[in-house]
């Protein structure tokens, strides 16, 4: 701002308190010119102003201040001043009857410290040294900032930012905060809100397990004291990771049992798994989980036996692995037969044969417990010759001839189990009647 050398400013930016739009500089010019003329001719020496005071000493833009000049009533006075210690500038003002001049600032007024160093009657040439200061600052305001400027969060998790509200020019209002532009599935909460001037608020961005993934810029807006400002942090929402893995039951029989794999935080996720079978690393394997984070399978007859140990898991959409603190294991035992049948039910010793069929019994060895004429007989151990009933069938069969020396009677099979398994499974058992050989 200049007062004298920029007459346009005076007309534009200053208004006399009496609401005269005419610049005080403009009003003073004709008289000042005359006085200067006579002074140079050495014809007159007009009274000089004696002092200068400014009140108040500091204002914001849009406010007014008053210059009071001792012995300056109705005088055209020249003022020398600097703005922010810049070059000395001069302006001329026509004072009122009280030796005062009121200046009101506008939004265009340059802000800074104005130092008045000299005054004189515009008709004179000699300056009277003075020292008076007015500081003009911008309007009270605030500036929001967000730290960190970018955050990262997994789906279903939350992350925090610090929102700082810096007061400017004596800003002393509270600021209400809001966030916009977050992707679907993400929401924001501020604490506290509103935040006092010069204070901080914690912004927590909460994401759902289905929140959109990727990098997003969003806006944090603060409103207070008639001012609105915003900051634009970013957030990277990454696909969520599974947190745990369990398999139940821990042991099962091929062709009999079913396993359920449960993955923590795995709802609807496709996971990739690292595992070993019998201690040998297998290629990674992926599977889609249901909304409960589960996946189930009933072991078919031809399931590879041994210990499966899962050591790491990850979301298919992520490349980083979650290492399991303890491997999730399950052990698959060889098939356990589920039923047994014998046809025909009666065979003559030395003639014909019968077929024994074991459900889920293809290519397994059977242990058999049976009775002969109601009396428990010694069990058969490791009967290994059950072949597939048909190509790909889980059921096994053996066609068994009955020799002439086979003892006649009713043979009831009591129980069976496979040698490689540890438990027997009672089931409804068939009987076979061996008739004595026919006399020849």
């Amino acid at each position, binding site marked *: 701002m200049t007062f004298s050398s920029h007459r346009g400013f005076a007309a534009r930016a200053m208004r006399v308190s009496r609401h005269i739009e005419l610049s005080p500089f403009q009003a003073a010019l004709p008289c000042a010119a005359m006085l200067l003329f006579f002074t140079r001719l050495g014809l007159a020496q007009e009274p000089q102003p004696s002092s200068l005071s400014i009140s108040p000493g500091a204002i914001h833009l849009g406010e007014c201040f008053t210059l009071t000049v001792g012995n300056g009533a109705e005088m055209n006075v020249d003022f020398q001043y600097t703005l922010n210690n810049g070059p000395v500038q001069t302006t001329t003002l026509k004072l009122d009857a009280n030796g005062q001049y009121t200046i009101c600032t506008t939004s265009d007024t340059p802000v800074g410290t104005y130092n008045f160093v000299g005054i004189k009657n515009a008709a004179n040439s000699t300056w009277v040294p003075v020292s008076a200061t007015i500081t003009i600052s911008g309007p009270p305001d605030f500036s929001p900032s967000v730290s960190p400027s970018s955050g990262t969060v997994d789906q279903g998790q939350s992350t925090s930012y610090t929102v700082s509200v810096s007061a400017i020019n004596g800003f002393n209002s509270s600021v209400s905060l809001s966030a916009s532009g977050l992707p679907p599935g993400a929401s924001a909460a501020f604490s506290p809100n509103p935040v006092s001037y010069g204070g901080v608020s914690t912004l927590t961005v909460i994401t759902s397990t289905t929140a959109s993934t990727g990098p997003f810029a969003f806006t944090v807006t603060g409103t207070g004291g008639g001012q609105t400002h915003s900051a634009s942090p970013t957030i990277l929402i990454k696909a969520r990771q599974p947190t745990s893995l369990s398999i139940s039951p821990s042991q099962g029989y*091929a062709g009999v049992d079913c*396993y359920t*794999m449960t993955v923590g935080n795995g709802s609807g996720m496709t996971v990739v*798994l690292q*595992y070993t*079978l*019998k201690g040998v690393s*297998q*290629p990674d*394997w992926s*599977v889609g989980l249901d909304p409960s984070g589960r996946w189930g*399978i009933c*072991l*078919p007859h*031809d*399931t*590879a*036996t*041994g210990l*499966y140990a899962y050591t790491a898991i990850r979301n298919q959409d992520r490349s980083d692995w979650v290492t399991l603190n303890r491997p999730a294991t*399950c052990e*698959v*035992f*060889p098939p356990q037969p589920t039923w047994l049948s014998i046809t025909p039910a009666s065979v003559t010793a030395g003639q014909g*044969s019968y077929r024994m069929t074991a459900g889920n019994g293809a*290519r*397994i*060895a059977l*242990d058999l417990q049976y009775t002969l004429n109601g009396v428990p*007989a*010694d*069990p*058969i*151990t*490791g*009967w*290994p*010759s*059950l*072949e597939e009933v048909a190509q790909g069938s889980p059921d*096994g069969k*053996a*066609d*068994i*001839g*009955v*020799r002439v*020396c*086979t*003892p006649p009677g009713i043979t009831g099979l009591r129980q069976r189990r496979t*040698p*490689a*398994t*540890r438990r027997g499974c009672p089931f409804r058992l068939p009987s076979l009647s061996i008739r004595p050989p026919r006399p020849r």
Partner: protein
Amino acid sequence: MCPFLTVACHGLLLGFTVLASSNTCLLAQETLPDIVQRAHTAHGGRWISGQIVDWVSEGKLTYFTVAGPQASFDVTVLRKGKLQIQRIIKQTGGEVRQGADGTRNWDSLRGWFVGSAHGHALDFIESQTGRSIQNLFNFQSEGLILQDLGTKNGARVIEAVNRSGRRTSYFIDLTTSLITRLEFVTGQSIDAFSRRPVPSLDTYIFSDFRAVNGVVTPFKIERYLDGIKAEEMRFTSVRYNAPVKDDVFKP
């Protein structure tokens, strides 16, 4: 230099440094037939010449479950020539016989019998005949093609492929040159979770080697089905050129 020759040389240096009397690797040019010959020598060197006509092994057979040993029975294994085999398991309720006579095979028990052996019974019979260690030693006359599967668990693995493409792996110990393991694929199972195919293996592990009439013979044979121990045979006596009559090879 082909990788095989390099491995052969290193493996031999481990086990037979005494043989390497100069700084050069004397056995650097060892071929697969050489390796089999070395194993044959380690086993006594009497199989190729036909000095062994038949033999009888007697001892105990123990069945295993995943929980451990289940039941033990006396067992006798009779062998004659390349094709005749009979394993007699004296279970308390009667004998179980698994064998072959060159034209048929069987699996019988207690007067019942199965017309032909299948499954694990047939696999055992094959391990004693067409896939036997003796068959490997006579690979040339048997028309076997040898393939090098490298070194695994301290053993050189040689795969023999017969005329019909059937494959059997033999593990030759790097230190002793004895055959300590015989293994073959019996089928295919499915990974419980990934549904990828996994080969089903029948594995025989030989140990407790003792010299019988100059033949270095395993007195302990463990059988694993898909890595799960199923049987163990511990012999108390092995007799070569017993002799064994033909009529014992029947159900």
